[in-house]
């Protein structure tokens, strides 16, 4: 038993190191940039999804297959109520993006987004394209993301109340991005094992997905036919896809490793478009990967260009 105190000491030191890394400071502008980018994306996405949401709200009650928070419902809501909640969520997301009344509007926006997109996924088809943006909005709603670049907040004003800083929230968003890819990679190993690496499961998935689209009047993917005809290439792509998903925790190292992983994951999504015509707009627009880089520079750049264009004219 003499080893126990020494082991305890090591565990405490390891925990302290993790805590130092997790709470390492980051500028308030970085978290604010993430609030603006993620909030604007979510608001635009919700506006684009309104017709689709109105469509599923009219489906017969027998088709309701509640997922997540929608489990509290025993019957579908009237379509007008579904649309009203969605419109209110869009208004809240705009306030969230602007940082206006953040302590009230941010949790309500997160709740509205979670509810509305869960409702859309409660008709037999779970839209995995929307998971991460919901998780990011929830994480931002828990964070002091309106300490900078927020409506009604003066430049240089100190953070409200004693804080844990802003770095932990940026790390949290990065960890959520990383974790969703890791879970997807582990799912492949749980369901298909190492067989997934020989390319055959991917080949069949690409074929079935494109068959479905062809039969249902959708557009098929441009590279589906040549790739299905050449299984050896698909074996290489399967290995690459799994390596990217399982390698997602590398993104938490930050710096060059994070940027390289993000570009690899982005390329993976481009590959999904070209082989299955399945679009994941959140990562394809790079908003999903902003927590891995200096987001304040990426968000400030278009604003600077706009200001320069205005002053030049």
């Amino acid at each position, binding site marked *: 038993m003499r080893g126990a105190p020494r082991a305890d000491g090591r565990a405490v030191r390891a925990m302290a190191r993790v*805590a130092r890394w*997790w*709470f390492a400071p980051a500028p308030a502008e970085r978290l604010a940039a993430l609030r603006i980018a993620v909030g604007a994306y979510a608001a635009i996405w919700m506006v684009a999804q309104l017709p*689709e949401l109105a469509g*599923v709200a*009219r*489906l017969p009650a*027998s*088709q309701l297959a509640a*997922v*997540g928070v929608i489990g509290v419902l025993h019957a579908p809501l009237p379509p007008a109520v579904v649309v009203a909640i969605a419109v209110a969520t869009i208004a809240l997301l705009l306030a969230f993006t602007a940082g206006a009344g953040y302590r009230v509007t941010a949790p309500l926006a997160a709740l509205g987004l*979670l509810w509305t*997109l*869960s409702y859309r*996924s*409660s*008709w*037999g*088809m*779970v*839209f*995995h394209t*929307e*998971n991460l943006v*919901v*998780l990011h909005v*929830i994480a931002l709603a828990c*964070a002091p993301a309106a300490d900078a670049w927020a409506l009604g907040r003066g430049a240089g004003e100190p953070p409200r*109340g*004693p804080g*844990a800083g802003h770095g*932990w929230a940026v*790390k*949290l968003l990065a960890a*959520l991005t990383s*974790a*969703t890819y890791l*879970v*997807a990679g582990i*799912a492949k190993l749980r*369901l*298909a094992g190492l067989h*997934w690496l020989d390319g*055959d*499961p*991917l*080949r*069949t*998935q690409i*074929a*079935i997905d494109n*068959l*479905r*689209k062809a*039969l*249902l*009047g959708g557009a098929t993917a441009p590279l*589906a*036919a040549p790739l*299905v005809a050449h299984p050896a290439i698909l074996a290489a792509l399967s290995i690459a896809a799994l390596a990217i998903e399982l390698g997602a925790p590398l993104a938490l190292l930050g710096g060059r490793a994070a940027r390289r992983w993000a570009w690899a994951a982005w390329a993976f999504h481009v590959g999904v478009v070209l082989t299955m015509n399945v679009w994941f707009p959140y990562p394809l627009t790079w908003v999903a990967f902003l927590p891995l880089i200096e987001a304040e520079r990426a968000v400030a750049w278009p604003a600077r260009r706009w200001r320069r264009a205005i002053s030049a004219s």
Partner: protein
Amino acid sequence: MTSRRLAAVASLALCGAVLEPLVRDPDDDGFPLSTYPMFAAPRSAEVTLAHAQGATRDGRVRPLSPAQLDTGEVMQAFTTLQRAVAAGPEARAALCAAIAGRVAGDAALGDVAEIRIVSATHDAIGFVARGAPALREAVLVRCDVARGPR
């Protein structure tokens, strides 16, 4: 609790929630906490899928779009069809009638006289790689497109 403790609790709760599907049945999908089963499970290339077709009076088949199923999403259209087919004759007939109603209001499909919900078995790889036809096909339900006087 200090705000650092609150931040740690929020961080652990959210990260734990996202990783929780790892201890769930992989087929027990959820939102937004997903097990990501799509594209993960090995599947047979021979698949039976239901789809909707329009047919003209002279027997030509016209493809229908997801819009005829009141959605812009192919996958939602697919799910709506499969669930109606699985639910039995009444649900199939109701869906067929709903599609016929939308087709009746679509000028671009003015020559479509009948809607069919078809169950077709394909070799998906043969279909995508070489355009192979269905191995088997059966019409599950058909209904007329009723148009008012023009």
